[in-house]
């Protein structure tokens, strides 16, 4: 027996390390920061995220593996890292004033966000099931707390508890799946699993493992019928947390989902593709249909995020380079658009009072024309109107499906987009065609929130008008 010293290449995990370090610094700084200055902790976190983004860019183009093949820095992982960092940075911008308005202005908020980001980055770059599981837990635990962060609010507490219970439940499935796979192949490394599969293609233990793994991922990205927690948690959690969760978790979990199934389990593709296609149909359809009659904007956006997970799943079913790049592009587009949409909700809330009902948005276009216009654009992008990011993303995913012979899936996707237009247009109609609702006319829009909205808007429009650079970046692929 030979003992191999793992290659301790910290450079490869530099982005995650920097964010973790930032989190620790913020945690320490929290002790010495007086209450009115807590928002500087958020700025500190922002700086850390920016540096991590710089490090990520520095790693670009030279795929490398480290720690005995447990983590990689390939373009797929780095692209997702950038998406996660971008989502986290915009979320913090949205949160700086939000936490004060909701009287939860504590440094721990940013610490938890940053630790979740560490988990997300690791999850997107991990190539070993054990690391993926650790990352999953690392990102989940802070989110359970964040969901319940507004301790005085029973709904927030309920959301946190529900998320935790069901999350633990699904984590158990996930871990059980890993055990089966280890039992079937003797390894948890994705590449080695693939090699073992190549030698012994019919492996029932592995099949069970793959199914349980699928359940775990399906829970995290909120696929129907594993989505039940989503509307309740999104609705109950503080809006800034919902915004962060809805984008970061999706990017990270989909990253690991894609990597695990495309790198380790392509030999089973025939089996899982059909299951995933069925789940995609269920997810898109149920997400969109359920969103139709929601009168609450946050619940509507929750179902909308379920539906979007269904679209992204089509890309996984399509497999191949075009499926992969379209999913990455979609996640980027979705991150910007969804944060913009939640950001608009935050921007036009009055202290702790939020515009949660769609009818509250009546006449908003007359009172706050700029925010309303941006909200309308984000809604249109989510619905997939050209020339916005959401359109390009959908176009790429559907064409990837058509290319690989899953045209029927693309057709169902398009029909679903059609249904979704109804509920995305409802707030727009409300804002532009209804009389203003009394009591919403004296809101001071926080400049930082407006800044986040403008940044997201620029991204959404740029990705719609000139998507080529992002598409080129997204075609990097895995390091195998």
């Amino acid at each position: 027996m030979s003992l191999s010293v793992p290659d301790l290449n910290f450079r490869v995990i530099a982005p995650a390390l920097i964010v973790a370090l930032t989190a620790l610094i913020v945690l320490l700084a929290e002790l010495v920061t007086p209450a009115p200055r807590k928002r500087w902790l958020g700025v500190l976190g922002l700086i850390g995220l920016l540096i991590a983004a710089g490090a990520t860019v520095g790693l670009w183009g030279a795929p490398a593996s480290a720690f005995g093949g447990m983590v990689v820095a390939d373009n797929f992982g780095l692209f997702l890292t950038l998406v996660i960092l971008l989502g986290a940075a915009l979320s913090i911008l949205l949160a700086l004033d939000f936490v004060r308005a909701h009287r939860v202005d504590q440094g721990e908020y940013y610490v938890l966000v940053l630790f979740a980001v560490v988990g997300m980055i690791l999850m997107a770059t991990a190539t070993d099931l054990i690391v993926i599981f650790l990352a999953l837990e690392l990102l989940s635990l802070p989110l359970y707390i964040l969901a319940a962060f507004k301790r005085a609010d029973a709904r927030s507490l309920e959301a946190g508890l529900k998320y935790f219970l069901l999350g633990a439940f699904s984590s158990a499935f996930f871990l059980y799946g890993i055990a089966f796979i280890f039992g079937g192949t003797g390894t948890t490394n994705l590449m080695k699993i693939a090699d073992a599969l190549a030698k012994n293609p019919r492996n029932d233990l592995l099949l069970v493992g793959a199914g349980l793994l699928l359940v775990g991922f399906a829970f995290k990205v909120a696929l129907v019928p594993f989505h039940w927690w989503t509307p309740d948690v999104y609705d109950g959690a503080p809006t800034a947390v919902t915004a962060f969760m809805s984008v970061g978790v999706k990017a990270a979990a989909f990253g690991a989902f894609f990597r695990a199934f495309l790198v380790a389990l392509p030999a089973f593709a025939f089996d899982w593709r059909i299951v995933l296609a069925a789940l995609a149909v269920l997810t898109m359809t149920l997400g969109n249909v359920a969103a139709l009659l929601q009168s609450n904007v946050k619940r509507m956006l929750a179902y909308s995020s379920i539906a979007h997970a269904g679209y992204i799943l089509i890309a996984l079913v399509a497999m191949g380079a075009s499926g992969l790049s379209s999913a990455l592009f979609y996640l980027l587009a979705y991150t910007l658009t969804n944060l913009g949409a939640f950001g608009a909700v935050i921007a036009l809330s009055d202290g702790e009072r939020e515009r949660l009902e769609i009818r509250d948005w009546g006449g908003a276009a007359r009172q706050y024309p700029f925010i309303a216009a941006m909200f309308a654009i984000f809604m249109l992008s989510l619905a997939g109107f050209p020339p916005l990011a959401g359109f390009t993303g959908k176009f790429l995913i559907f064409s990837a499906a058509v290319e690989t012979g899953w045209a029927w899936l693309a057709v169902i996707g398009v029909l679903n987009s059609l249904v979704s237009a109804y509920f995305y247009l409802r707030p727009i109609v409300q804002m532009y065609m209804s009389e203003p609702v009394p009591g919403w006319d004296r809101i001071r829009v926080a400049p930082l929130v407006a800044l986040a909205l403008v940044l997201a808007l620029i991204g959404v429009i740029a990705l719609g008008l000139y998507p080529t650079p992002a598409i080129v970046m997204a075609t990097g692929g895995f390091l195998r």
Partner: protein
Amino acid sequence: MINSLWLIPALPLAGATINAIFSRKLPRWLVSVIACGAVGASFVVSLLAFFAMQSTDEHHRVFNVSLFTWIPVADFKVDVAFLLDPLSALMLLVVTGVGFLIHVYSIGYMDAERDDGYGHFFTYLNLFIFSMLMLVLGSNYLLMYVGWELVGLCSYLLISFWFHKPEAASAGKKAFITTRVGDFGFGLGVLLIFTTFGTLDFADIFAHAKLIDQSLITIITLLLFAGAVGKSAQIPLYVWLPDAMEGPTPVSALIHAATMVTAGVYMVARSHALFELSPFSSEVVAWTGALTAIYTATIALVQMDLKRVLAYSTISQLGYMFVAVGIGAYGAGIFHLMTHAFFKALLFLGAGSVMHAMNGIIDMRQLGGLRAKMPRTYITFLAAALAIAGFPFFAGFFSKDEILASAFATGHTAIWVIGLITAGLTAFYIFRAFFLTFHTEPRWTTDDRRPLTEDDSHRSSVNGHRSVHPHESPAVMTIPLAILAVLSVIGGFAGMPKVMGANFLEHYFEPVFKPHDLHLAASTEWMLIGASVAAGLLGIALAYWFYIARPTIPVTLARRFSGIYNLLWHKYWIDEIYSWLFVDKGYRLAMFLWQVLDVKIIDGAANGLGRATAALSRVTRSWQSGYARAYALMMLIATVIVLGWLILR
């Protein structure tokens, strides 16, 4: 010089832009100077380009100037590129030259227009010149199509320029909708060209045309010709052109006589490499032209509205041009296009001058005896009438003769006979109009008494009781008349038949069209010339006899052959038939589609789907109980199903 080709369309576009934005604030003289100057400068550049082209080697007189790539989408690439060859160069000179004269004439003609209208008019006119130049210069079908549609838009805007008049507004609509029918075919043709050749560039297409299946070429050319039928007002889509006379007369002269309506002829000539490969399509073109020529000439025989006579005459003359390009005499067709631009523009401007003098009266039953009052208009109109009648050595004589001789030489004897008869009819109706307008007793009055006309049955009640004081038009109008008159007299010498001298034009067109040798014996050629001259003279003589010598004859004839007379007077009732067949039936179909198909079936289905989806949404909402234990149970069931399916399959 040839690299500055872009200036030719750019100048009128600049003129249109400036006048569109600033004409309200600019003094009227400046608006005129900008508009006329832009077209004039464009004419000068065209002339320079023409000479630059002529100074190069004879076999390389085809220049492709690419400005930029317009649409690069995968395999589909279209450049904004201009093509200068003898064909487009001649068209440039005609469009900018005649266009410039008509612009100048408009300064006088539109003088009575209120402030905004004056600027608008010149804006549209400049925009039209730009569009027509794009059509002519484009070196691919897409650019040509863009110009093609833009001239249609300008035509619409200018026909309904006096949109407060219901007739003008509906004439504009009629023109636009009718030509769209043809444009649809043209658009399909362009698409089919792209799917067949993978490119829209003229040079590429024509170079590879021989490799394509002939039946496909036939379909393509017939589709393209459908566009020409609409734009150049041929059977069965000619009905819009007579109504287009509701527009200001310079518009009729420029768009509906000299330039836009000839776009179809130009397009067929430009696509000659395709048409040559499809004898069937060429035959269709020739016969459409021949039938249109004689058919509309018969209508022109009895019309009383001077401009409408000219409109039907235009359709008839366009028929000649299609005969020419249909039988393969492309040079002759373009030659007639050029001479026609001179004399028909002149006829229209003369008619406009008459309208200007007569307070807008254009019904020949209220004209007459204007010779003494407007001598310049009179003499120039006479020159144009002689030209169109094919009087020896006038412009129309040479071009019409070349077409007829080509028809005879290529064995299209029936078409030749039709053309010959049409030539006689043409001479008759144009001199009928000439005599009724300028000779005969005045049927207008300078005081408020009723006009002196004896036949009141069809008189328009609007113009019927006005007193007028006819006068010669100002120099700004008569000088363009004079220049066009000179061109109408001498313009034909460019293309003399071989027996009389050299045919410069045929030689000029050699880089584009194959020389078209008629292989006719000199005696045959003289005989053909004699026949067409005789037909023309006979027509003129008959007109003289009917309307000067024995003015009672037309009345007697109309009474005796009242059936035929009414048929012609009502233009074969084609407008009524179309209105019944398309407008009325189309309206009923639209009502059906709206009230039954759209409201009941489509809206019903959409609303039903919406209701069904909403019901489903209510169901799914009920699943969301809020209890974590229920969620966990449902997840467990789903897990079991997924695993079961994976393992048991």
